[in-house]
């Protein structure tokens, strides 16, 4: 995985399937970097993953929640069609974390250029 900085946004790309300890390290690194760079937004790109298990989904939700507590919004981008449907069937969503089709859309969503089309409570 790699974490890049783009303005006030962190872009974290996951390149290969991560095991549980790698996921935890990913979480620690990412949340630490939010503070270092004073980031306001985080994009997690999972386009390269063809499977997202329940622990991975949980980790993504925790990262988003921790990022929120440290003042950054998280968007998950690039979930593949089959992955999306499998996740839903197994009852593991991304909770309240916004999702977008790809990196470009995710950046647009964070910079507020696009109404994400969802009803907010």
């Amino acid at each position, binding site marked *: 995985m790699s974490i890049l900085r783009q303005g006030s946004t962190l872009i974290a790309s996951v390149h290969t399937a991560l095991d549980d300890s790698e996921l935890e390290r990913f979480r620690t690194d990412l949340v630490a970097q939010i503070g270092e760079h004073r980031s306001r937004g985080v994009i997690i790109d999972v386009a390269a993953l063809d499977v997202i298990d329940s622990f991975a989904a949980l980790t993504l939700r925790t990262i988003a929640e921790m990022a929120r507590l440290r003042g950054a919004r998280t968007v998950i981008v690039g979930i593949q069609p089959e992955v*999306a*449907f499998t*996740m839903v069937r197994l009852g593991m969503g991304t909770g309240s974390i916004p*999702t977008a*089709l790809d990196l470009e*859309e995710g950046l647009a969503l964070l910079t507020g250029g696009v109404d994400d089309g*969802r009803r907010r409570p």
Partner: protein
Amino acid sequence: MTQTTPGQHLLSELVAHLREHRTRLREEWAERIQQAHLLAAMTPQEMAAETTSVYDNYVEVLETGSVEALQHYARDLSERIIPRGVETHEVVGIVLLLRDVLARSLFEKYQRDFGLLNQVLDAYEPAANRIANTVAVSFVDERERVIRQQQDAIRELSTPVLPVRERLLILPIIGVLDSDRARQLTEQLLAGIRRHRARVVVIDITGAPDVDVAVANHLVQTVDASRLMGASVIITGLSPKIAQTLVTIGVDLSKMNTIGDLQGGLEEAERLLGYAVTKKEDATLS
């Protein structure tokens, strides 16, 4: 030189006989086809042409024992006659008629020598049966291929994913939604979202009479999966019956964005995407 067995020798004699009386036997066969009212969909000219080539192929297979050329021909023939509405029983029927016509001519030729007739039939029958078998199987195979092709076409047509505006897809569902179709709908929708980079999808189910519990659940999952891919889904045209099903199965419907009809759904989608559609005062329909 290869040693010829008595059977092979008889078979070549038989083939020579069938070649010699080709015209007469073929006409007799054509006549019997007509009497049996088979291949009524074909014109007499076509029938003459087809019966001639079937006859020649038949004799050739008897001679060489190789059914490959016949298989090829039978497939080709099936391809031509299936669209004309020729049925399996007709194809099998004409091949069996030819078998009978030729067998009769053998009876006639060898009637004086019963022992020889028996030997000739021993050589003839297995070959003839194999031919009938090959033709029937080729025909059925071809028909199944056509059916499969049509099924694929219908399946693809049954769930079109249509781009209406940039980033906006419509998915009209017409007809009964069974679990097979529902699964396929999901696949096509998710692939469509990716391909067209859709942000909003309107699923219109005005044309679906009813859904069962499994399909309703599947529909809800499809909406969630689309959301994971960054597209929001608007469902329109829910009939009272389907609405009741959805409520009864107790799925969480709070995330479902539903609007009464397709028109309303499109308006909502345009609003979400930031389109403003205005009517021109001086618009004419000329």
